[in-house]
């Protein structure tokens, strides 16, 4: 009668042998959901609205070519995520992969960088969500009031945080609804704009689309790096897809395929909307409306009252992304807490909702504190911190690319395929991202290039902000290190030779988190 943890039967959740077996996880995420979450976390609607004008200013008609080139490093590292996930599907974050391949210190910093980047971007997303909520209902005076926008932005963060805590079905429904609204409106926009261009009812500045827009070889190296600095980060978010792992028998392929499909969908959305916007309005108009390309174009393309459609696209994009930003970050901190790399309470789950509620709520609260605090203290710093985001994203995604090559170093020369896709590809992608990181850092070191134009310690504020968070990360790491030295004493691991051919077992017992190691 004292028996515990006997599986009730072979159920939909798989024939679990019992809770002692920590390795098997069935009934995980489906293919479609993976794709949805990957696309949604990237926030294509908002990314386009905020980026397209700047890219046009840098490379004129070649924006589609830049979008394709920028896709390459992210795509190569995405391949690395796929292979890392294959060897270590239990801990789906850069934190754990970098820890395993390159040691706990770098791994900790990678996890920390994800958390910081997500908190910073939340402020931006909340602001957009607040602003566009008012614009949707034509409340112009409220949209212009910082207090009103910030208040509504906080409401959005709180709302999305509670949805993630309550979790389960509600998150799913919210995400599907928001993403569908976003994609449908973007598609409508592209179709109507292109129809108007070809039927001649577009404004005189319109240009028929040309294949030459896609040609990357017409760009100078300077244009390429300037354009990539802007465009590479609009693909940020796909890594959420790769963190999702499925442990049904035949599913080592499914998460990888979902990653590829969602990045390709993103590329498709970006190219179609960029071509439509550019051919409808011409480059000058895009540059003139840099801050938000889509709202102004929406009015031109659809006219009243349908112009609200693109506001919906950007609003749902920002709202959905708020949710998909809290979600993986809380998972990263959960993972870190259970490896004793962060305080233990972050690894707890809610008894009723079964979600990592403490991690999630902490993320929401920190985001609100950061957002409101900086809005009060200095909006310049808020914008400057967004400029620092690129450095952080390039750092942790690039680092993960290198981690793939290092983790698989005994497997690289098995075949031409593994050499390129596991070895060269991810590291090359990582190298491009690190190049952009350095390039960006040099640019940001000049105070004149920041939003505020301020000079801190002779450098631009974004660079100082990035360095500040790096130092803070090291300090917190040492605090945790002194308290829980076990995690930080872990040795780097390597994927045994023969793993990819199925000749060697996966490194370590499946499900062995760092906490199970001596």
């Amino acid at each position, binding site marked *: *009668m004292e028996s515990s943890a006997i599986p009730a039967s072979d159920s939909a*959740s798989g024939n679990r042998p019992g809770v002692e077996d920590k390795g098997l996880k069935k009934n995980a995420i489906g293919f479609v959901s993976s794709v949805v979450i990957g696309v949604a976390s990237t926030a294509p609607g908002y990314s386009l609205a905020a980026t397209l004008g700047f890219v046009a200013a840098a490379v004129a008609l070649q924006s589609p070519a830049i979008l394709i080139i920028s896709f390459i490093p992210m795509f190569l590292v995405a391949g690395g995520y796929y292979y890392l996930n294959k060897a270590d599907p239990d801990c789906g974050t850069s934190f754990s992969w970098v820890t395993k391949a390159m040691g706990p210190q770098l791994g900790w910093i990678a996890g920390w960088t994800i958390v910081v980047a997500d908190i910073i971007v939340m402020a931006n997303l909340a602001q957009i969500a607040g602003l566009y909520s008012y614009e949707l209902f034509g409340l112009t005076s409220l949209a212009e009031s910082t207090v009103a926008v910030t208040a509504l932005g906080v409401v959005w963060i709180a709302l999305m945080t509670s949805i993630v805590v309550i979790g389960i079905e509600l998150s*799913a429904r919210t995400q599907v609804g928001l993403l569908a609204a976003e994609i449908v409106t973007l598609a409508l926009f592209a179709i109507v704009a292109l129809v108007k261009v070809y039927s001649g009812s577009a404004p005189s500045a319109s240009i028929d689309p040309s294949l030459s827009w896609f040609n990357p070889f017409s760009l100078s190296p300077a244009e390429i790096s300037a354009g990539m600095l802007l465009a590479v980060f609009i693909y940020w978010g796909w890594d*959420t897809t790769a963190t999702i792992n499925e442990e049904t028998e035949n599913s080592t392929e499914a998460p990888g395929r979902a990653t590829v499909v969602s990045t390709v969908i993103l590329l498709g959305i970006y190219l179609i909307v960029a071509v439509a916007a550019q051919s409808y309005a011409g480059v000058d108009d895009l540059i003139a409306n840099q801050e938000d390309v889509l709202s102004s174009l929406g009015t031109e393309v659809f006219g009243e009252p349908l112009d609200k459609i693109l506001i919906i696209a950007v609003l749902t994009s920002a709202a959905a992304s708020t949710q998909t930003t809290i979600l993986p970050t809380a998972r990263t901190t959960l*993972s870190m807490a259970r490896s004793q790399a962060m305080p233990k309470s972050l*690894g707890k*789950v809610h*008894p009723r909702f079964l979600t990592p509620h403490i991690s999630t709520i902490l993320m929401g609260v920190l985001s609100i504190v950061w957002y409101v605090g900086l809005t009060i203290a200095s909006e310049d710093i808020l914008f400057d911190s967004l400029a620092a985001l690129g450095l952080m994203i390039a750092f942790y995604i690039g680092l993960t690319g290198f981690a793939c090559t290092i983790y698989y170093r005994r497997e690289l020369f098995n075949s031409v395929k593994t050499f390129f896709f596991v070895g060269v590809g991810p590291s090359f992608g990582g190298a491009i991202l690190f190049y952009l990181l350095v390039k960006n850092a040099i640019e940001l070191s000049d105070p004149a290039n920041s939003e505020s134009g301020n000079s801190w310690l002779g450098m631009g504020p974004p660079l100082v902000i990035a360095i500040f968070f790096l130092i803070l990360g090291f300090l917190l790491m040492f605090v945790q290190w002194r308290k829980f030295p076990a995690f930080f004493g872990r040795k780097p691991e390597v994927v045994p030779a023969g793993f990819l051919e199925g000749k060697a077992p996966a490194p370590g017992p499946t499900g062995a988190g760092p906490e199970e190691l001596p």
Partner: protein
Amino acid sequence: MGQIVVGYDGSACGDAALDRALDLAGELGDQVTVVFGYAPPGLWGGEIAEHEEAIEELGEMVMAKARSQAAGRGIEIDAQLVAKRAAEALIEVAGQRDARMIVVGSFGDPPLKGIILGSTPNKLLHMSERPVLVVPASS
């Protein structure tokens, strides 16, 4: 000997349900099976194994609490962790044990909140082919 299946999650309303189930078991001479459904809230969360381990640990803790609560009254219980959502887990175990009834606690959530969050007692009442006893948390 009859069987009573009770849903327990360590919360106040779970305590109320377990208490009442132990009362009834004493009066009827039944055995008590305590069930904790721990289907991870995966789907869209992209839950990782660590998340699931955390949930399983929580389940063990909850079950230990249930055992000590029952032991305090001199009753031995059968504790079951089931990797399903609460309502499905209860129905399944009740079916296997051919239980007399299922006992669950009610949070006393307002109806609308129950609709949005999906309340377990509500689901049970509609899905179960066996009698369901819903115990208010305040009782």
